[in-house]
C-alpha cells in the first residue's frame, strides 16, 4: 500500500513537470527539453532556503518558482525565436548548464554531495512526514496539482491560450494578425518552468535529501514521453501519461520481479513508446482536447 502511495506521489510530482511541458509543447508547439532543469531549480531553491536561510517551505517554494520564471524568461527571450530542432538542443543545453552550475557552485549547492536534512513541510499547521504520512502528502499534492491543472485549463480557453495555439499553428500568420508571438512563447515557457519548479520543491520535502544526479536529461525525456503518450494539448492526457509511465517504471517492483527485469529494459520501453506513438498515433492516447464550441449569443 505504501508503495502504491509512493508511485502516486511520484506520478503527481512528474505531473507538475508534464503539465508544464504540455503548456510549452502541447499548446505552444515548442519542443523544450529542460523540464528537469526547472525541477532542479525548484528542488534546490527549497533545499537551500530551508536549510541555510531558515525559510519556511512555502515562501521557499515561491522563491523557487520566481527563480524558475526569471531563468525561463532570460533564456526564453533569445532562444524561443528558434525553430523546433534548434530550440530542443538549446533547451537541452540549458538543462545541462543548470546541472553544471549545481555541480560546481559548491558553496551554495554543496556540489555533487547534494543537500541533506531538508526540514519537513507543514500544511496549514500540520507537519507532513513523508515517511509516515504518505496519504497526507499525496492528498496535499493532489489538491495543489488540481488547482494548477484547472488554471492551465482555464488559460487554454482564454484569448491567451488561443493566441498561443495560433502561434504554434502558424507563427507568421499569427504575427500578421497582430499577435506578438514572442510574448506568448516566453509566457508559455515561464508557466512551464514555474510548474516544474513547484514539482521540484515538493520533491525536496518528499525525499528530504537531494543530489544533482537526479535531474538528468533522461528525466526531461521521460516527462516528454508522458505528454506524448497521454496526448499533447490535453490536460487529462498528461495525467494519464504520467500515471502509465510511472506504473511501467515501477512494474518490476510492483510484480516483485526486480531480479528478472533489469531497469534498462523499461527505459528501452520508453524509447520504443516514443517511436511507436509517433508512427502510429502521434496525437497520443487521448488526442488533443475537443475544441470549445462558440455559439451565437451565448458562450
Amino acid at each position, binding site marked *: 500500500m505504501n508503495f502504491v502511495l509512493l508511485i502516486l506521489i511520484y506520478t503527481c510530482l512528474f505531473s507538475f513537470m508534464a503539465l508544464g511541458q504540455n503548456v510549452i509543447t502541447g499548446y505552444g508547439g515548442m519542443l523544450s527539453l529542460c523540464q528537469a532543469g526547472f525541477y532542479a531549480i525548484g528542488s534546490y531553491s527549497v533545499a537551500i532556503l530551508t536549510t541555510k536561510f531558515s525559510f519556511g517551505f512555502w515562501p521557499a517554494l515561491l522563491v523557487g518558482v520566481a527563480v524558475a520564471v526569471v531563468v525561463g524568461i532570460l533564456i526564453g527571450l533569445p532562444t524561443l525565436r528558434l525553430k523546433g530542432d534548434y530550440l530542443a538542443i538549446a533547451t537541452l543545453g540549458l538543462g545541462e548548464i543548470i546541472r553544471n552550475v549545481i555541480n560546481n557552485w559548491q558553496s551554495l549547492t554543496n556540489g555533487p554531495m547534494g543537500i541533506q536534512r531538508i526540514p519537513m513541510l507543514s500544511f496549514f499547521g500540520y507537519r507532513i512526514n513523508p515517511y509516515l504520512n504518505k496519504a497526507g502528502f499525496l492528498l496535499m499534492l493532489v489538491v495543489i496539482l488540481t488547482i494548477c491543472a484547472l488554471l492551465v485549463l482555464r488559460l487554454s480557453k482564454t*484569448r*491567451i491560450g488561443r493566441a498561443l*495555439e495560433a502561434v504554434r499553428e502558424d507563427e507568421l500568420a*499569427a504575427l*500578421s494578425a*497582430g*499577435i506578438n508571438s514572442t510574448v506568448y512563447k516566453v509566457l508559455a515557457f515561464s508557466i512551464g518552468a514555474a510548474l516544474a519548479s513547484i514539482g521540484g520543491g515538493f520533491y525536496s520535502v518528499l525525499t528530504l535529501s537531494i543530489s544533482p544526479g537526479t535531474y538528468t536529461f533522461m528525466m526531461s525525456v521521460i516527462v516528454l514521453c508522458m505528454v506524448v503518450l497521454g496526448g499533447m494539448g490535453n490536460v487529462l492526457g498528461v495525467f494519464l501519461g504520467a500515471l502509465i509511465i510511472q506504473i511501467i517504471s515501477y512494474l518490476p517492483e510492483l510484480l516483485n520481479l526486480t531480479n528478472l527485469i533489469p531497469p534498462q529494459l523499461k527505459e528501452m520501453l520508453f524509447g520504443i513508446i516514443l517511436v511507436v506513438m509517433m508512427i502510429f498515433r502521434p496525437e497520443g492516447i487521448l488526442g488533443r482536447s475537443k*475544441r470549445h464550441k*462558440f455559439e451565437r449569443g451565448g458562450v
Partner: protein
Amino acid sequence: MTLLETKNLTRAFGGVVAVNNVDFQCEKGEVTGLIGPNGAGKTTFFNDITGLDKPTCGRVIFDGEDITGLPPYRIARKGIARTFQNIRLFKELTVIENVLIGLHFKLGGNPRFVAGMRSFLFMGKEREEMVERAYRALDFLGMSDKANELAKNLPYGHQRELEIARALASDPKLIFLDEPAAGMNPNETASLVGLIRRIKDKGISIVLIEHDMKLVMTICDSIVVLNYGNKIASGTPEQVRSNPLVIRAYLGGEGND
C-alpha cells in the same frame, strides 16, 4: 487621399534585387492591383510592407505615419491586414477561433497584459462581445454555419474565404490580398469579385496581387506593374493595358515564363 505610400522601396537578397526602388501609392477607398510576371517581386513587396520581411532601404508610409521596419504585429495593429498566397490558416483551430485570432488585438485594451489577465479571471463578458464580432465577420462571408468546424476540414475555396474573414475581423483600414483567386474555378472567381466589391463598399482599401487579368481589369481602380523588381507602369486599367512595356513583359522579351 493617399493611404499607403512607399518611397524608393528596395529589397536585395545578396546580389539579387527583388524589389528595386519602387514608388507605390494606394488611395483610400480604392482597389489597387499589383501585377507582374512570376518572380517579379510582388510577394516580397507585400512582405516588406507588412513587416514579414525588412526592406533594404526606402520608406513605407501608412496613413501619414512611417511604419518602415516595424514588426508585423505592430503593423497589423495600425490597421493593415493580409492574406497569403499559399493559405496560412490555424488548421487545428476552428473557423471561429481563426476569426477570433484576427480580432485578438482589437479587444485588448491597455495595458494589454492587464487585459489578458482580466480575460483570464473573468471570461464571460468580453468573450460574448468578441464572439458576436467574429460571427459578424463570418456572416459577411456567409460562413457562420461552419463556425465550429476545424479550419483544416474546410474545402479549399472556403479556406481562402476564411483567411479573408480573419483579415477583415479587426476592421482594418487596408487589406492585402495575395492571389485570392489562385486555384479557384470561374464560379468561385465570380463570387470573389462580388466579395471584393463588398469589402470596398465597407470603406476598406484593398491592394490585390492577382494573375487573373480579367479579374484585375474589372475590379481595380488603378494598377501597378512590377517586372524584375522594377515598377514599369502604373495607372488606370486602360492605361496599363495599352502600355507597350507591360505588353512586352507579359508577351515577349527575354526571360519570360
